[in-house]
């Protein structure tokens, strides 16, 4: 037995391997963006310099990065929980909207001590988002409907529902389609006065820790992961497959709803049309990129937000459209997904050329 002690993890994708894949993917994204920037007639080096300088130009830009990544991280953590049971939660935006509007209603209309308002808003937003997500999960678990299509349809339904609410019954005086602001006293305090970053980011760190704990240490997390590995085996193992699958989508939706509450109470103080700029899709991309690990989701979200803040500030200086962030993001994720397979194909082809005796060794 002793001889094996030293090659403990030989059969799992090694750390080096995943680092290599990530590096290759980032290299791909850089190459693609260089091509794009060159064809614009700009100098890639100086564009990159602008982006980095722009993102870190002062404290407020750094805090802006934190503010931007807050909702994405929360939704992304939810996505990772749904992914454990094999569900893809593309409904983050709709769930976010539902959480935001119900939290706003509490914030505006509930007259109670701050703590109670906060707790009520959190509960209601989680419930609203959870129902929105759980519905897609429920249909998938009971009648095997694609949760992706349902979730996307639910996004639009939520979008138009919000549109209706903020321009009709909940509209603030003044003609702009938005709700009234929540009272100042229940607004989340800022990290530094005058910036957009608020104490919500602290929640995020705790939430990530909590998700990590649940998924890696608890029976519940283990059961969710088992369903994702093989629903057939999980059922044989006595795990309530359908119930837990729906639960995982409910939690994912609840997270997105909570993100909506945080945005309303921390950043906008009201709900308006376009409060979510496809957070849900970005969160899914980042969760895939991070292979559904909490720490990875935080790092990925911070990176993408840095890029967004950088590009936004650069736009004033150079003419590079902000949608380059979307392109870079999708190229990185695409490469991450495809790279291991390409490398495996390549290695397989190489191995085939070896005579059989040497092959056994490799």
């Amino acid at each position: 037995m002793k001889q094996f002690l030293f090659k403990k993890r030989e059969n799992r994708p090694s750390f080096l391997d995943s680092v290599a894949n990530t590096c290759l993917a980032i290299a791909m994204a850089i190459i693609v963006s260089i091509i794009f920037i060159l064809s614009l007639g700009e100098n890639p080096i100086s564009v990159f310099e602008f982006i980095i300088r722009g993102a870190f130009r002062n404290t407020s830009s750094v805090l802006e990065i934190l503010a931007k990544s807050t909702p994405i991280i929360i939704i992304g953590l939810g996505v990772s929980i749904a992914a454990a049971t094999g569900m893809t939660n593309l409904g983050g935006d709709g769930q976010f909207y539902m959480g935001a509007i119900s939290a706003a209603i509490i914030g505006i209309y509930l007259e109670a001590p701050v703590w109670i308002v906060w707790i009520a808003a959190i509960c209601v937003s989680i419930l609203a988002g959870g129902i929105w997500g759980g519905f897609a999960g429920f249909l998938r678990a009971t009648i095997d409907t694609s949760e992706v299509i349902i979730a996307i349809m639910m996004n639009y339904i939520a979008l138009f529902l919000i549109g209706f609410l903020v321009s009709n019954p909940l509209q603030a005086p003044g003609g702009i389609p938005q709700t009234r602001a929540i009272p100042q006293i229940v607004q989340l305090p800022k990290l530094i006065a005058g910036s957009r970053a608020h104490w919500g980011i602290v929640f995020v760190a705790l939430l990530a820790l909590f998700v990590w704990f649940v998924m890696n240490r608890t029976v519940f997390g283990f059961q969710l992961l088992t369903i994702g590995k093989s629903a057939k085996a999980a059922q044989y193992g006595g795990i309530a497959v359908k119930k837990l699958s729906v639960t995982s989508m409910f939690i994912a939706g609840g997270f997105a709803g909570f993100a909506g509450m945080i945005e309303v109470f921390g950043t906008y103080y009201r709900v308006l049309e376009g409060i979510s700029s496809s957070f849900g899709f970005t969160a899914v991309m980042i969760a895939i990129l991070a292979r559904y690990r909490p720490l990875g989701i935080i790092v990925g979200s911070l990176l993408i937000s840095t890029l967004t803040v950088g590009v936004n500030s650069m736009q004033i200086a150079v003419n590079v459209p902000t949608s380059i962030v979307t392109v870079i993001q999708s190229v990185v994720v695409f490469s991450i997904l495809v790279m291991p397979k390409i490398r495996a194909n390549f290695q397989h082809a190489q191995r085939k050329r070896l005579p059989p005796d040497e092959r056994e060794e490799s």
Partner: protein
Amino acid sequence: MLNPANTILEMKGISKFFDGKPANDQIDLKVNEGEIVALLGENGAGKSTLMNILFGLYQADHGEISIDGKVVSINSPLDAIALGIGMVHQHFMLIPAFDAYENIALSISGKRNGLVNHQVIREQIKKHSIQYNLSIVLDTIVQDLPVGLQQQVEILKALFGECRILVLDEPTGVLNEQEKIKLFSSLKELKAAGLSIIFISHKLDEVLDISDRVVILRKGKVVDSVITNRTNKEDLACRMVGRDVVFSVKKGPRLFDNKMKDRVLEIKNIEVHGKRNTQTIKDLSLTIHRGELFGIAGVDGNGQSELVEALAGLRHVTKGKIFLNGNEITNRSSRSIKQMGLAFVPEDRRSMGTIASYSLDQNIFFRNSDSKTFRKHFGQIDKKKLHMLGDRLIKDYDIRIPHRDMLVGQLSGGNIQKVILAREISSDPVVLVAMHPTRGLDVGAIEFIHTRLLELLSSGAGILLISTELDEIISLSDQMAVISNGKLSRPFRPDELSLSQIGLLMGGSDEEACR
């Protein structure tokens, strides 16, 4: 006329490795025109692998294939078909959602993409089926046809490809006696028409009956090649097995007095619907007592899977009742059935019995995740306790695992089966349901598993053993029955009926025929 010594196919030095283990090891095989060659060997001897290489489903790691003396490369079934090789697979290669006609039309499509000429093809099918004495039902969806008829479609399909070499992989495994006789007469006609046939089997009588020459494989190597009419059954058996005894573990003779014993499992007139509502269990009853092993023999796909899934709470029972230790468990959740003491070794050990990408500890835990034993505060998993249990099972069941973090999917079949068995038995079951627990395993592992099953019996549990290996059922059971077409024969003691009588039951004959 044909020259019988004319070699049509030659395979030289074929080797194929799976995970570094040789499935085929330097195999040579020659087939002449108009000859029926039988490939004889036990499960896992490498017969199917060799033929899958010939048909292009696998690529050999080593060796060459020549046809008509010319070296050819076969990279896919397309190449094989073009070279005139046809194959009737053990698991039929038919599109279940197509009717027979569409299946045959597809098989002759080749490089054509255009219009399907219905009339011409239908006439050709008619012509061929009359010529080779095959019965084809054209307009029924294949998945609704009985297996015998499905096989006829499979054969006709192979013949349509204008093949010169026809490979049949265990063709009789799913057939009853009449269907078998019909198949053999078809094969003889094909031979007379000049086809070369490779017939894969592990059944000695069939091989003696149909072949001109027998090539015997053992553990991936050719051990012998003999002319059929210069050998006999005993000789072949000895060469195939390479040892004298197949099953060394035998249940000692015991006396049974059913009135003295508690009934641990009682199935009363249950009815179960199968996949796509096709195969159903009809009015099935059986009783197992403490310390008793009840064996169910039968050809695969006659309702065994549906029965065990219904017992384990994974499939809905539409009629009838099931009692475990006197408590009704009909249609309860698999979790509560497990908690009430029914342990279950499923047939699919890699995708259901275990989770390949989990470690040994995790594989023990996923079947016990609700038990309080392994739960700490805040719903945490008690990994220490789990690890200790893992250590104990590894020791008790001689599970060969290089290190504890290794994924179970990387273990050999025998070790995976030991993991499952260890896990199930460690839960102290009232009844153990084991389906194909030894399929595809080597002799050592089989003996080990048999010993463990008998130990479990002596501790007072009941066992329901379902297997296609008749020898296994006969040597281990106290009581046995045969399942055929969803119906269970009357239970009998293994020594009560002769082998041929049991064979008849398996072929679907009713009980009176066996009296």
